[in-house]
């Protein structure tokens, strides 16, 4: 991903304006650590901090402000890793720890990951875009390899031998000649070892990882991995089956009150009047009002709910169009009208042509843990106001910025912590819940917890953008593509570029400046929409040509990695072994984005009432060297299950500024009964860098299912969801 692409993505995440300069003071942190070994990273412009024994720049004031600490090893050999990335179910806490353990030559259990704490971890743009594995992975491996080198040097000094003759293994340095060993803890005991690596001037590189320096210690190749690359069980997994794990909504503080927010009755509404007298009279209830901001706090969440219900507010909701008129409005609002002479020429020379339109609906992330925050006001050491917030977010530093701005505070007056949360899928990038909790807590003079209701989460979060995709394509009788044109209106540019060979092409994203609903990131972004359109269109062309859909793809595909997943999926599925019938269809689709390669084969069953059921899906996946095969398999399978919702039945219905299906009873998400037999085939490319796998696993299922439905019924479904209410219609 280039910087431009990253900035595009940041814009989609609505965070472009929030990318800001890195400025953290590590002094408090260093004081906390006390001693041991610390590996830091410094901006290139900061004065160099050479490694030193005896405390140069340690424990005090000499370290430059831009230094961030990444790895600490204490006198017991306990390793603490600091990263601004967060764990939201994608298993990154485990897989990053594996990478560190690997390079540091310690057991997995020796590692503790401190994540997403704005006071303790280095600044990070956020956990999105499948960036943690390809960028934070190498970053931490580099830090760990540096720490290992420092430990070997320290041991060499103690033994007065050449460091090159020593080996690091199992948490100790060993002298193969003498057999002497020194544990990491013993080496760091009573010592103050620091090394600061140079050359990572955030924010430009903060999300890419530090550019490696030729002087950096070599990283262990994947072929030699012993801990990385293995199915290490989920870190702290036991706490998840015993209920001990504390999610953001489980945080409790002494004297904590519970908040509720008054919501408008529709989007873009203005408050006409609000009568809060009834709520104010309730015992133990405080009403907080600041303009249109109206909330309540009480010592009991149930009391807060009742107080909220007692507020009578009048809202003026402007007339707004519904989801039925959505695509017409989108086509009108988004600029189009681009043409390519090459494409026109390519089309005129084609034996078979296609011009079709595909759509995807607005959908909701619906993470099972809704937005939640606990806010507490206290004092800094200097006697200033200090705001501490625990919240579920993919961008703790972004939420910190929101709070700094909202309350006109300085950087050191706000701390945001992100306990591993009840997921996000790209849906938790914004800090509104944290700001609300902080405002309520400020008025109450006590810590306040705010948990959004399911209806609030469905209504006042943001949505995956809806979109229209227009595709024109042409092919020769022998299956050679001659032209390709793909326009995406509003849903986004991710995976817009076709992986198939065609020189005459035009691929264009058309922005809609004023979308109907608040829209933002979602797992895979527009890659789902663009793959649905492209892989459906490819299937249409194949059928027009009378070619096998897999053969047609392969004929136009040079990308070896994509070819490999198509081949693997087809083999495992038994593609072509059986012919589709009226009640049973087979479909195939695939693609690549963000360094991940996916191909899926689907089998669907259609009953007499046109009810569709996905029976079996095989998906092959490749994303370079696998860091944790079990975690990866879980991610890919989960992405496939989540994809079923958007493919078949998920869509936000709205009218006049109101969401009409803001409850799980009305907004259908995949459940046990919807889940087909799923097989995941993993291809481990140890010769390639590890890419992220949280997102792209979602892209292939919908077109594979749509193509299977067509193969059975001859009906081409070009709108996602394809079978709202289970019954599909063209």
């Amino acid at each position, binding site marked *: 991903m280039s910087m431009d692409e990253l900035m595009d993505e940041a814009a989609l995440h609505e965070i472009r304006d929030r990318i800001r300069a890195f400025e953290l003071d590590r002094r408090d942190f260093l004081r906390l650590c006390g001693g041991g070994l610390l590996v830091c990273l410094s901006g290139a412009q900061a004065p160099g901090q050479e490694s030193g024994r005896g405390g140069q720049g340690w424990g005090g004031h000499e370290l430059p402000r831009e230094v961030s600490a990444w790895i600490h090893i204490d006198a017991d050999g306990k390793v603490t890793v600091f990263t601004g990335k967060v764990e*939201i*179910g*994608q*298993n990154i806490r485990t897989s990053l720890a594996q990478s560190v353990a690997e390079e540091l030559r310690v057991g997995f259990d020796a590692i503790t990951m401190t994540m997403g704490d704005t006071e303790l971890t280095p600044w990070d743009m956020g956990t999105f875009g499948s960036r943690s594995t390809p960028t934070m992975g190498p970053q931490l491996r580099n830090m760990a390899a540096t720490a290992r080198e420092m430990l070997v040097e320290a041991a060499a000094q103690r033994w007065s031998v050449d460091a090159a003759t020593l080996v690091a293994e199992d948490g100790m340095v060993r002298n193969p000649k003498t057999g002497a060993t020194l544990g990491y803890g013993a080496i760091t005991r009573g010592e103050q070892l620091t090394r600061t690596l140079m050359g990572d001037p955030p924010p430009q590189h903060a999300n890419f990882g530090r550019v490696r320096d030729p002087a950096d210690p070599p990283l262990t190749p994947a072929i030699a991995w012993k801990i990385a690359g293995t199915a290490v*069980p*989920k870190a702290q*997994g*036991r706490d*998840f*089956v*015993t*209920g*001990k*794990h*504390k*999610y953001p*909504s*489980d945080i*409790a503080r002494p004297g904590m009150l*519970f908040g509720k927010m008054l919501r408008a009755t529709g989007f873009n509404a203005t408050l006409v009047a609000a009568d809060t007298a009834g709520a104010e009279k309730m015992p133990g209830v405080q009403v907080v009002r600041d303009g249109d901001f109206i909330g309540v706090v009480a010592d*009991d*969440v*149930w*009391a807060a709910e009742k107080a909220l219900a007692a507020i009578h507010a009048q809202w003026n909701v402007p007339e707004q169009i519904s989801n039925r008129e959505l695509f017409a409005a989108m086509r009108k609002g988004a600029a189009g009208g681009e043409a390519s002479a090459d494409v026109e020429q390519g089309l005129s020379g084609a034996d078979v042509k296609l011009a079709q339109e595909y759509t995807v609906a607005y959908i909701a992330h*619906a*993470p*099972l*843990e*809704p937005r939640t925050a606990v806010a507490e006001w206290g004092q800094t050491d200097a006697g200033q106001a200090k705001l501490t917030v625990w919240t579920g977010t993919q961008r703790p530093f972004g939420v910190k910025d929101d709070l700094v701005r909202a309350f006109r505070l300085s950087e050191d007056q706000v701390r945001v912590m992100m306990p*591993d*949360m*009840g*997921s996000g*899928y790209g849906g938790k990038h914004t800090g509104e819940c944290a700001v609300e909790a902080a405002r309520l807590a400020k008025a109450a003079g006590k810590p306040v917890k705010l*948990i959004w*209701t*399911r209806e609030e989460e469905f209504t006042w979060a943001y949505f995956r953008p809806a979109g229209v995709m227009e595709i024109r394509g042409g092919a020769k009788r022998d299956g050679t593509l001659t032209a390709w044109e793909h326009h995406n209106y509003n849903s986004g540019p991710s995976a817009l570029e076709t992986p198939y060979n065609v020189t005459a092409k035009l691929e264009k994203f058309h922005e809609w400046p004023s979308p109907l609903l608040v829209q933002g990131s979602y797992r895979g972004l527009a890659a789902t929409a663009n793959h649905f359109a492209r892989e459906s269109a490819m299937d249409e062309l194949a059928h027009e040509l009378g070619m096998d859909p897999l053969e047609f793809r392969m004929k136009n595909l040079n990308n070896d990695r994509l070819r490999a997943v198509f081949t693997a999926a087809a083999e495992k599925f038994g593609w072509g072994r059986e012919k589709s019938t009226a009640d049973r269809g087979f479909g195939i689709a695939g693609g690549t984005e963000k360094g991940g390669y996916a191909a899926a084969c689907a089998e669907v069953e259609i009953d007499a009432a046109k009810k569709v059921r996905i029976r079996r899906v095989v998906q092959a996946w490749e994303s370079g060297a696998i860091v944790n095969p*079990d*975690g990866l398999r*879980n*991610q890919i*399978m*989960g*992405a*496939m*299950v*989540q994809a079923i919702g958007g493919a078949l039945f998920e869509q936000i219905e709205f009218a006049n500024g109101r969401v009409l299906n803001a*409850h*799980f*009873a009305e907004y259908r*998400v*995949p*459940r*046990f*009964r919807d*889940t087909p037999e*799923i097989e995941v085939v993993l291809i481990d490319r140890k010769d390639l860098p590890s890419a992220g796998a949280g997102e792209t696993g979602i892209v292939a299922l919908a077109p594979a299912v749509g193509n299977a439905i067509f193969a059975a019924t001859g009906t081409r479904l070009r709108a996602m969801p394809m079978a709202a209410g289970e019954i599909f219609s063209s």
Partner: protein
Amino acid sequence: MADLTLNVNGTELRVRAADDAPLLWVLRNKLGLTGTKYGCGEGQCGACTVLVNGQATRSCLTPAPATVGAKITTIEGLEKAGVLSAVQKAFLEADAMQCGYCTSGMILAATALLREHAHPSDEQIVEAMEGNICRCGTYPRIVAAIRRAAEMQMASEGRKEEPEYVHG
């Protein structure tokens, strides 16, 4: 407001709560048992599932006073003397979770299922679990974990203690 005595995980606990306060919030906010999760408050997602006299029950829709005299089991009550229940163990070994937010409710729903049907068919598993949402999509692993838990329970039958609560 009422003073209630609730039997939670084998212990009698006194708590003051509104007459219509959902058991979910009493467990979480008054008794500090946060393993029981809020997912929707509408009985549609199963994250708040607890056992009331052995039956899987949506604690978000159950008034706390209605559970006085009943035996309530939450996720915190399944582990006995440091030993996980078969269902907990199976979920852990199968890594049948991603974010884990649905896991408490899943484990309790599965526990109730296995009390009813020691060796459930796939259809019985789907039927019993259909009200529990895993938005991360780990359903196949959860089904596998339930099957495995059933096997573990069958294998240890005979050595097992009598259940501490009865259906009712």
